[in-house]
């Protein structure tokens, strides 16, 4: 009889030995009978050793437990094949691998070092994704079933289930980036449908963003993420999602341009204020520089770099958390802006460059429906028209009630030298020197008051001064708690409110003035006041033109219904726009300024907004548990121990322990 050659035979032999040992062990507990001449002496000895009885009981208990462990393990080992038949060893488990390649627009992003590197170092993420996918494909067993899927706004099967690697390689190589955003929910649903009922179902997700679970919630799918782009480096360092904030990144990685707002100065469309919202994720203030670039044509970071459109370089210190930084008096002659946050030190390396950029475009502001109630005049009309946003409707005070019953709600109600009951939640701008009907607003009538601005920082007072302005009369407006005194009249050392604003419950303005009783200076500067007031009353705190969220469907309002609108996506050749109901329909993951131009040269430009999902820490946080393929980790699973052998090993260990205990009792 030859010696056993395979591990299974050895283990079988070991099982027999263990069973024999177990049998011997079962026989062992029979106590030897020892006849002693005088049991009383032993009783005395036992009584003296009462102090150690507890320990001996423990020893017996341990022995008993070990015996049970031995018996249980041996029974488990012997019974294993009966109650858990092992799969045929010659047929290891196979995966059904759905290889999903992200072909959304963000995969066309060029990654590489800026800006001194040569063009050879630039590569887009899809190329890297193809390489990763092919590399993974090469690790699979030849007969393993694989399907290749391209995912963006919708999913497309590039290669169906099969094991023909050549077909699958060609499918991967043919994957091209689309201009659509990524719909992770759809990908998840489609993947589930494709994998339903297949053995060893798993998804291998090749993308620059997190696996589907990160947005669609917990899933039963086993997902392995092959990260590409900047996320690849981050996933190498991020292990624990709870420790995401402690990722050892460079200072630039902690800085992000969260938001960018561009607001023309009221009354002067060529000058504006740029508000940059910076997020500092670290716990310390970081010095940085804001590079403001403007251009007529540039639409993305590379374009702004290429065109050398730097307008301003402002050093800032970003405190921890969010902070706002304003750049005032910005020339808006070039309507497309980009702000880039740069490190104070040139050596800083940034592994998340995309969130250091933000874009803004000057667009036409929406028109405001202004309902003027009462006696209007030419100066007031001129001021409202000069603001460039007001579409004015004038009615008499007596017709107000009937008008509001049939007409849509205006954006602002301007009550001019009249007294009407305006619905509570409507923004109201009251200009009157007459005694108002509201008893709480009854104030004194001042003659030739000297007005002083008291709240210069208020949006309605921006750029406003009453110096050298003469008023014949003014009526004081008692300010209630919580209201802001915008301007006051200095009377006998006291400041009596004349211009008052309130935020809650709705924005309202009270002016105790009459334009007809002012000099020319006030009349001429009234457009600035009116533009400020209308913008504030209409809710200027909200973005006038909201940015386009990346990866979502867009419907951009166009000024006309022409059919020859063309869409200029950042970094992509111009193409016909999809038009429906006077709106341009699109979606993109290219961060920058998106432009639609019609045949007459009418332009609509909208900046995009970087979604939160592009946050590298969110993307890099491990979602589903990575799945290791047996072939990829062949060295780790060179020998799969049968379960019964594990039982047997446990029995042997317990038996050894018990044997040692027994020997200790027996022979010491």
């Amino acid at each position, binding site marked *: 009889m030859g010696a056993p050659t395979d591990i299974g035979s050895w283990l079988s032999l070991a099982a027999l030995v263990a069973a024999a040992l177990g049998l011997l062990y079962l026989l062992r507990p029979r*106590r*030897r009978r020892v*006849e*002693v*001449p*005088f*049991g009383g002496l032993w009783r005395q*000895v036992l009584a003296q050793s009462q102090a150690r009885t507890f320990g*001996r009981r423990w020893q017996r208990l341990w022995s008993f437990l070990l015996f049970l462990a031995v018996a249980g393990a041996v029974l488990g080992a012997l019974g294993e094949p009966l109650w858990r038949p092992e799969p045929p060893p010659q047929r290891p488990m196979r995966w059904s691998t759905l290889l999903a390649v992200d072909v959304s627009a963000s995969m066309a992003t060029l990654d590489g070092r800026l800006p001194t590197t040569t063009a050879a170092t630039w590569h887009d993420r899809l190329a890297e994704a193809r390489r990763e996918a092919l590399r993974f494909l090469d690790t699979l067993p030849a007969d393993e079933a694989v399907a290749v899927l391209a995912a963006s706004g919708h999913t497309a099967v590039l290669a169906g289930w099969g094991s023909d690697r050549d077909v699958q390689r060609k499918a991967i190589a043919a994957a091209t980036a689309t201009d659509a955003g990524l719909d992770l929910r759809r990908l998840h649903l489609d993947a589930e449908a494709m994998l339903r009922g297949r053995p060893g179902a798993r998804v291998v997700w090749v993308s620059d963003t997190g696996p589907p679970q990160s947005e669609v919630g917990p899933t039963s799918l086993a997902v392995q993420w092959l990260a590409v782009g900047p996320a690849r480096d981050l996933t190498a360092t991020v292990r624990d999602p709870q420790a995401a904030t402690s990722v050892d990144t460079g200072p630039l990685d902690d800085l992000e341009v969260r938001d960018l707002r561009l607001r023309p100065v009221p009354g002067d469309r060529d000058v504006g204020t740029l508000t940059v919202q910076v997020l500092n994720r670290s716990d310390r203030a970081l010095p940085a520089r804001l590079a403001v670039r403007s251009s007529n044509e540039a639409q993305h970071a590379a374009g702004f770099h290429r065109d050398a459109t730097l307008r301003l370089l402002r050093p800032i210190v970003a405190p921890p958390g969010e902070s706002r930084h304003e750049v005032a008096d910005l020339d808006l002659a070039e309507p497309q802006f980009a702000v880039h946050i740069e490190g104070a030190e040139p050596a800083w390396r940034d592994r998340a460059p995309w969130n250091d950029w933000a874009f803004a475009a000057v667009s036409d502001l929406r028109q405001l429906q202004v309902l003027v109630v009462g006696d209007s005049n030419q100066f007031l009309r001129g001021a409202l028209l000069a603001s460039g946003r007001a579409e004015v409707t004038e009615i008499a005070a007596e017709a107000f009630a009937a008008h509001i019953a049939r007409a849509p709600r205006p954006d602002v109600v301007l009550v001019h030298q009249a007294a009407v009951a305006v619905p509570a939640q409507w923004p109201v701008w009251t200009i009157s020197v007459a005694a108002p009907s509201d008893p709480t607003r009854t104030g004194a009538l001042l003659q030739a008051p000297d007005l002083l601005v008291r709240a210069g920082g208020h949006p309605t007072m921006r750029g406003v001064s009453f110096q050298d302005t003469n008023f014949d009369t003014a009526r004081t407006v008692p300010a209630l708690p919580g209201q802001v005194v915008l301007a006051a009249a200095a009377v006998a050392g006291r400041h009596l409110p004349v211009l008052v604003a309130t935020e809650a419950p709705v924005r309202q303005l009270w002016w105790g003035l009459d334009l007809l009783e002012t000099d020319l200076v006030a009349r001429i500067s009234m457009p600035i006041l009116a533009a400020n007031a209308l913008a504030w009353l209409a809710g200027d705190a909200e973005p006038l033109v909201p940015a386009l969220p990346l990866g979502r469907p867009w419907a951009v309002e166009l000024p006309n219904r022409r059919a020859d609108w063309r869409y200029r996506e950042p970094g992509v050749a111009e193409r016909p726009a999809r038009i429906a109901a006077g709106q341009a329909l699109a979606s993109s993951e290219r961060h920058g300024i998106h432009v639609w131009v019609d045949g007459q040269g009418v332009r609509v430009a909208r900046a995009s907004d970087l979604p939160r999902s592009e946050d590298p820490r969110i993307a890099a946080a491990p979602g589903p548990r990575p799945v290791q393929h047996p072939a990829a980790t062949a060295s780790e699973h060179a020998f799969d121990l049968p379960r019964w052998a594990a039982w047997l090993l446990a029995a042997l260990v317990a038996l050894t322990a018990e044997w040692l205990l027994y020997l200790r009792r027996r022979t010491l």
Partner: protein
Amino acid sequence: MAAESGAFRDDLFDAQFLGRVEQLALLARRMATSGAQAHRRSKKIGSGLEFAEHRDYAPGDEPSQIDWALLARSDQLQIREYEEEEDLSVYLLIDHSRSMDAGPPGHVTLLDRALQVSAALAYISLSNLDRVAAVAFAQGADPPMRPVRGRGQFFTVLRALSAVTPAGRTDIGMALQQFVRYQPRKGLVVVVSDFFDPAGLGDGLKLLAHRGFQPMVLHLVDAGLLTAGSYGDVALVDSETGELREITLTPAMMDEYRKAFEAFCGDIDRAAREVGALCLRLDVAVPYDDAVLRVFRAGGFLG
């Protein structure tokens, strides 16, 4: 000494044994004549030839007993007393409880050794013209055999000893009570036992001393039983009561047992000392002739 036919145990009292006890008797006689030991005398004061002591005259004393010479020298009226020589009775009380029979088969038991030593002492006593009686005891004392005298009665003693078989539990107090209840003549009582009696030995020895007997204690032990390789899980069986006790014998426990046994031996020594009795501990591993010689050397038997 010629062997006499009779029913006695050949395994204990064979020809070699008989020859050896003869040698022991000669040795004992030599030791006695060398002055180291005298013939055993009774303590009885009487009318013998050996002067014992003076005592004050009391009315009623015989005038012939007055030491007139002393009266003439010191003007003291004293009576001369003489030791009264009489036969010494030697009682061999042999414990035959089951504990005396403990040990593995083929092993010399305490009872075997007790019988051999008792037989040797009996022969020596008979050679010394003492009266000898063997009494077996366990829970109680068997009726003593009629004391015999003279070497010719040695086989009577052997037959009596051969009839002793292990039985019962040890109760020394009760056994000695019963022994004295038979009202034997005063004499030397040699108690041969392992003394494994929960009640102890003290009361019994005191009773013997109180009744005028001279007790002598031969404590037989089996040291081999203490050091047997009996570690581990064992069931201890009391050879007398049959009580079963399952314990795990560890070296530490064996040490404690040895300490307890030493304390037990100390109690026996103390009980013997309290009544002025000789106590000798004999290991069963020691041959019987050496044991007898040890008895001789310790004194108290040849005297």
